[in-house]
Each structure stands twice: as C-alpha cells, then as structure tokens.
C-alpha cells in the first residue's frame, strides 16, 4: 500500500488513518511518495503501527522510505520503538548528526501508563526540554514561554497515565514551512479516549463527542475527581501564546486557532464522524 504525501499536518493526515488501518497483515507500507513528515503525522503513524502490532502480533514493514524521511525518522528515534520493520536500515554514513542544530527536537519518547514510571519519564523529558529550549523556542525565546511549555508538557503527559489507561508518545520539533517558523508539540496515546474516560461520569452532559472534547479543554471537568485543570490550563496557555491546538479523540476533533483570533471569539472548529482512531492525539503549535 502506498501512502500519499499527506504527512504535512494533522488535517491532511486524516486521509491516511483509514487507509493504514485497512492494510492487510502481510502488506508493506510504501512511503516513497512522502516529501515531509511532521511530528503529529509521525506519532499517529506510530500509533497506527502499534495498534496493528497489538491486534495481529505482526509488524508492518515500511518500504521505499525516501532518504530525507528515513534520516528524519531515525534521528527522531522512531525506529527505537520497535513498532515497524524496514526493508533496509539507514546506512551509517547518512545518519544525521546530533549537533546543536538538530537540538531543535525532542525525540519520540514513550510515556508509560503507570504513575511512578511516568512521573520519572516526564521529569526526564522536562529536563531535556529545558536544555534544548534555546534551540526549540529560538524564535520565541523568553524564560516564561519555556516555563509555560513545561506546564503544557507536564499536564498533557499526566493525562496519559491518569486517564488513557495506555501508554503514549511525545515528540516536539521546530521546523520551517514556507516562510513560517513552527514549533509543534505532539502528545498522543491509543487509550480509551476522552469519551471513554467520561463514560462513568454521567453528570457530564454533552451533545456530541466533539462537544465533550471542547468541554474538557474549556472547563475544569474531570473524569476522576471533582475538578481537573490540566487541559483547561493548557488551552489557556495556548491562547495566551496565540498558538493553535488540535485535539482528536476517537472519531471527533476540536481545533482552536488562537493565532487567527480577531476581536471576540477564537476560531474554533468541532468535527464529528471522523474515522475512528483509538485514543487521544494532541498537537500544539506556535508559528512565527
């Protein structure tokens, strides 16, 4: 099966979700058409592969990976997860150096679903982020923005072990698209999703899955305790930084574009009836 060149953002990647899930156990995934892959698409592809591995016990094989994509995925420790096989390993002479320039990333990091382990991993990610913040947030550098991102990383990672009942992945990168500098943080899991998490909380009323996602990140509702401030706080921080946030869970998504906000309400888009994709995937972007 050949993957189309739709790994440039979360909206394009929608077309890939259904097609990868329909790939048979023995079929290879051909990446030859890819010209670029950003962190959300990378982690989503990883989750799709992991779902397949869990369902069938078989690994998908990625074939015909263009050199630049292969270099990038290797640099991001994508293959360290052990989810995919490849038709051939990347020759050592093509490995990207881990120089200061390439410190504009946080490699794919698994966030465990057990509290104690997870707290340790989150601490490690934050430590790495603080060391690289000068590179990752080069265009936004201020101590407060770095600190606010620490809060965002911490809150979103905690949601994985608190609510998803599964492990997840984090990745972060600064890159250029056209004339825009973009910093993107992605935290994704393939757990029970936001709706699954609120299944037992009957007092939380919503009229659609997307409406529930919207409530979860605009009001301090919690599936486990009286209040939960995490997503709500992340949303407030993204608004403060005039960024954008995309949350997808199961078959619904919410996008809030605070960077496009004029006077009054922000641009917010709710979508239901998307293809089902287990878990919750969150992408936060600042652009300059």
């Amino acid at each position: 099966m050949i993957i189309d060149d739709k790994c440039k953002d979360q909206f394009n990647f929608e077309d890939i979700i259904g097609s990868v899930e329909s790939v048979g156990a023995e079929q290879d995934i051909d990446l030859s058409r890819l010209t670029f892959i950003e962190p959300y698409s990378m982690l989503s592809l990883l989750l799709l592969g992991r779902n397949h591995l869990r369902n069938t016990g078989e690994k998908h094989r990625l074939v015909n990976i263009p050199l630049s994509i292969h270099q990038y995925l290797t640099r991001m420790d994508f293959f360290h997860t052990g989810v995919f096989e490849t038709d051939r390993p990347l020759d050592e002479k093509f490995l990207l150096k881990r120089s200061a320039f390439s410190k504009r990333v946080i490699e794919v990091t698994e966030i465990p679903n057990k509290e104690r382990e997870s707290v340790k991993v989150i601490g490690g990610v934050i430590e790495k982020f603080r060391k690289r913040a000068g590179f990752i947030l080069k265009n936004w550098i201020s101590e407060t923005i770095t600190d606010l991102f620490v809060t965002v990383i911490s809150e979103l990672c905690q949601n994985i072990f608190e609510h998803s009942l599964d492990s997840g992945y984090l990745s972060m990168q600064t890159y250029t698209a056209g004339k825009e500098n973009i910093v993107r943080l992605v935290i994704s899991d393939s757990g029970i999703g936001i709706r699954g998490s609120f299944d037992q909380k009957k007092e939380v009323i919503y009229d659609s899955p997307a409406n529930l996602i919207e409530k979860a990140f605009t009001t301090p509702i919690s599936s486990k305790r009286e209040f939960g401030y995490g997503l709500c706080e992340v949303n407030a921080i993204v608004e403060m930084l005039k960024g954008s946030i995309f949350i997808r869970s199961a078959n619904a998504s919410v996008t809030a574009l605070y960077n496009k906000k004029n006077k009054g309400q922000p641009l917010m888009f709710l979508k239901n009836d998307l293809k089902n994709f287990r878990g919750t995937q969150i992408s936060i972007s600042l652009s300059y």
Partner: protein
Amino acid sequence: MIINIRQCAKDLKYKNPDLITRPIGRNLFAKVLEKLAIIGLHEIVIIDFEGIKVIDSSFIDEFLVRLILLSRDEKKPFYVKLRNISESAEINIDLVFKSYSHYNNKKIVVISDELRHNNSYFIGPLTGAEKQIIDFLKINKSARVSEIADILSLPEEETMEIMEQLFETRVIRKDTQAIFSVV
C-alpha cells in the same frame, strides 16, 4: 513559620526546579503537613518558592489548594502567604484559583509577599472592592471597618460583610477588637 519549598523538595529527592505532577504535589503536601504540626493558632505560614520555576496545575491542586483549604479549618486556622513566586507559577495559580472559585462557588485566593501582575498583593479572583481593601491594609497595616467603609464609600454593614468574607477566605486578619490587618 517560613517553609522553604525547594528544601522540602530536596528532602524528598526532587532536584528539578519544576514541581510538577499530582504525585509530587501530594508528597510535598504531606511533608509540609509534618511541619505545620507545631504552628500556633492563626499563625502566618510563609511558603517560600525560591528556586522553583514551574508549578503546574496538578501540583497546585494537590498542594496549594489543599493547604489553603486546610488553613480555614476551624480547629486550627492559620494564614498562608506566598513568597518568590515565578511569573509562570503566578499564571498557573491564578488560572486554577479562578476556575476553582468559578465552578465551586467557593472563593480561593492567596496573599503574596511581592506585588503581582494585578498590581496588588494577592493571586486569585477578588472584586474591585476587595482589592481596594487588600491594598489599603497593605499600606496602613490595620484598620477598623468604619475607616474601610469611608474609603469604599459603602455603608458599614455592607463593608463588614465583605471584611468578614475576606477574613473567612484567610486573606486578612481580625483581632478580638474587630480591627482588621494585613496577612
């Protein structure tokens, strides 16, 4: 009593300048609780965050919100005052306190040693009149209700109600002579 949070965190083997996650909030709360065993009635407890960069909302919920609610315990009430709060910590505390107060119908506010972004000495949701009272007491140290009523141009009875609410919220003090003072 002054409690140095960085030191408490080090005692618990947390070396990072960031206090994040619920488990760490719970452990710090337990540690501080041990120290509070010896405080006197209505004592001011200064929570010093020197050296701490970030406290996230999970930590705030498990540590600070619980500490402030505990300070209102009728059996052994005390006052909480924050010191050396970073800018991002202030933003996070303010967001959590505003959400808590809005959705729980129970106001939660904390006094700060330093001037904050709201140009006053507290973090959390207070009304304009309440802010004026905090500012007045900060400058004048203490006052009777009649003096505050004059400043606010409000009837004494109404002013007394506001003052009592602020006292219950533990952001101002009251002595046996009904003289109010700053925390």
